[in-house]
């Protein structure tokens, strides 16, 4: 993708509301984008700028391409950055919270667990589980990395992760897991599934971020173009950390 000389490559979500909102951010920075060859194409450009290329990708692909330095800048959720990029702070920098795509990654247990309100309670339950049930406590989640990190910080190691490929919130009632770690924006899906969030069970408060890649090739004018973009956003009152960005540009 960055093969075309010294183009600044910006990755934007390829569909839906996120795409519209990301496009609005770029417009606010004075970079109106358009798709090449109709709406089904996955490449685009900034009107009137030959030095910038737009890549339309799924949000999780954006995180991956940022990690490997294939794109310079991307718009994606912090949850995906933290989940899919190993050692994310060393490979990307989150330079601006964008104020949309809000969602929390949370630990939720059956609301019938009236004895469990905190991670400390969960630690007790996890510790006695093997002796009582002949197996470890099971957690259904798509967020392996975030779950492992969060539980480790709370000193809990005695559990097993059950892979969940969708409808995670149904896993406890179906007997596939005891609790879940999942993303929620309004909490209504959890309530509908008789699950409650632990008091200290917010793993991550996520939203869409402007993310820059530390591994991308920042030579030949790309850093300058990115700097101009960030300064324009900052001028439009986006909370850009220019300092964090400069640390990447070198």
């Amino acid at each position, binding site marked *: 993708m960055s093969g075309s000389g010294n183009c600044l490559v910006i990755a934007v979500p390829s569909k839906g509301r996120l795409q519209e909102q990301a496009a609005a951010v770029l417009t606010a920075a004075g970079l109106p984008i358009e798709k090449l060859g109709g709406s089904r194409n996955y490449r685009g450009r900034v009107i009137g700028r030959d030095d910038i290329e737009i890549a339309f990708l799924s949000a999780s692909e954006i995180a991956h391409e940022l990690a490997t330095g294939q794109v310079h800048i991307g718009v994606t959720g912090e949850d995906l950055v933290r989940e899919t990029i190993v050692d994310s702070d060393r490979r990307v920098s989150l330079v601006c919270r964008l104020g949309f795509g809000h969602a929390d990654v949370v630990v939720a247990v*059956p609301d*019938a*667990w*009236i*004895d469990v*309100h905190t991670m*400390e*309670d969960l*630690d*007790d*339950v996890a*510790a*006695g589980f*093997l002796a*009582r*049930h002949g*197996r*470890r*406590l*099971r957690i259904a989640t798509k967020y*392996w990395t975030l*779950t*492992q990190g969060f*539980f*480790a910080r709370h*000193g809990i*190691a*005695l*559990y*097993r*992760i059950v892979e969940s490929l969708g409808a995670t919130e149904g896993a*406890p*009632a*179906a*007997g596939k*897991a*005891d609790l879940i770690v999942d993303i929620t924006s309004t909490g209504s899906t959890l309530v509908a599934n*008789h699950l409650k969030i632990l008091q200290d069970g917010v793993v991550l408060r996520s939203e869409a971020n402007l993310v820059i890649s530390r591994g991308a090739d920042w030579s030949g004018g790309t850093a300058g173009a990115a700097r101009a973009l960030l300064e324009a956003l900052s001028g439009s009152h986006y909370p850009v950390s220019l300092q964090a960005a400069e640390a990447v540009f070198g």
Partner: protein
Amino acid sequence: MPASGADFGVGEGRLKALFDAVGAEWLDLPVLHPADPFLETAGEDIRRRMFVTEGPTGERLALRPDFTIPVCLHHLAHAAAPRCYAYEGVVFRRHDTGSPERLETGYEDIGRASAPEVDAEILKLAVSGVSSLGAGDINVQVGDIALFTALLQALEIPPAWQRRLRRAFGLPARMAAHLARLSSPREGRPALDAELRKAAEAGDRDALTGALQARLAAQGYLDPGRSATEIAERYLDQQALTETRLSPRVIEALRAFLSLEAEVDRAADELNRFAQGAGVDLGPALEALAATAEAIGTGSPGVRIRFAAGFGRPLDYYTGLVFDVRAQNYPYPLAGGGRYDRLMQVLGAPASIPAIGFTIRLDEPSPVGAQAAGAGENA
């Protein structure tokens, strides 16, 4: 025979003479193992460090992250009588820096009744092993969670808190947080809805269980992992957890114990002095430690053995003595071991089987001097 991945012929490990002399059986273990036993025993935390792949029929396999569990599984499958085993080979774990491959050798003594003399014998064997590598002066650190367990009982701490504190043993930050909590308890729990509150307030176990059972069924739980009985029991017991506040005397005793350190031959005296001061009786646990310390003796020239009351490993299958062996020329412990009487049962043994063992690192040395000069990367 499975591929061993060992770079030696079976029975020709670097510590062959040492392990042969104590009658160890050399094991040639496969490199690939089912991943589940490692995850079931050490928990998900080890998953980040393990190399996991899939077998031909979709089963999850791991490059062995250690030898102890494969050795235990071998014993479980093949032996009824007590045995001791030796092994040498590469283990695979992701580390922040350095190679994920490490050459290790070790020894596991499985099925022999637990006794102070056995603990001392195994510790001395580990020290001999490290000595024979020519690693320079040796420092051994020894701890024993059985003493901490005895102290918690002697201080009459509520059982639910005893379990929490035991789990924090060997994790100083968590232990400190627990002790802070216990000096000033947390406020109460969120209110229950009307339906459950009546039974809960009356402390009526059966009524609360019944109400929870009805609720789980109404919510469509096919097979609730935690039953209504379990939830109701813990809810009622938990009152003790939230309301527990320990007296300053008890907190002080716990802190004093956890910071107690002494040369191993002075450990029993120091523990006695502590127990008298705190007004507690550490009973058989202290007698056992005194016997172990006596059997260890004063060590030998160039070997220093220190007891640290707060030293432990935060894994629930360790039950007694644990030790680390460090050597002058290495920035990391060269050997680690301990008594793990609960592991065999976790792995599927029908009854408890006593076991103790240790592992010694044999990978390329990363001497202290080189590390300081920035040349070494072997943490």
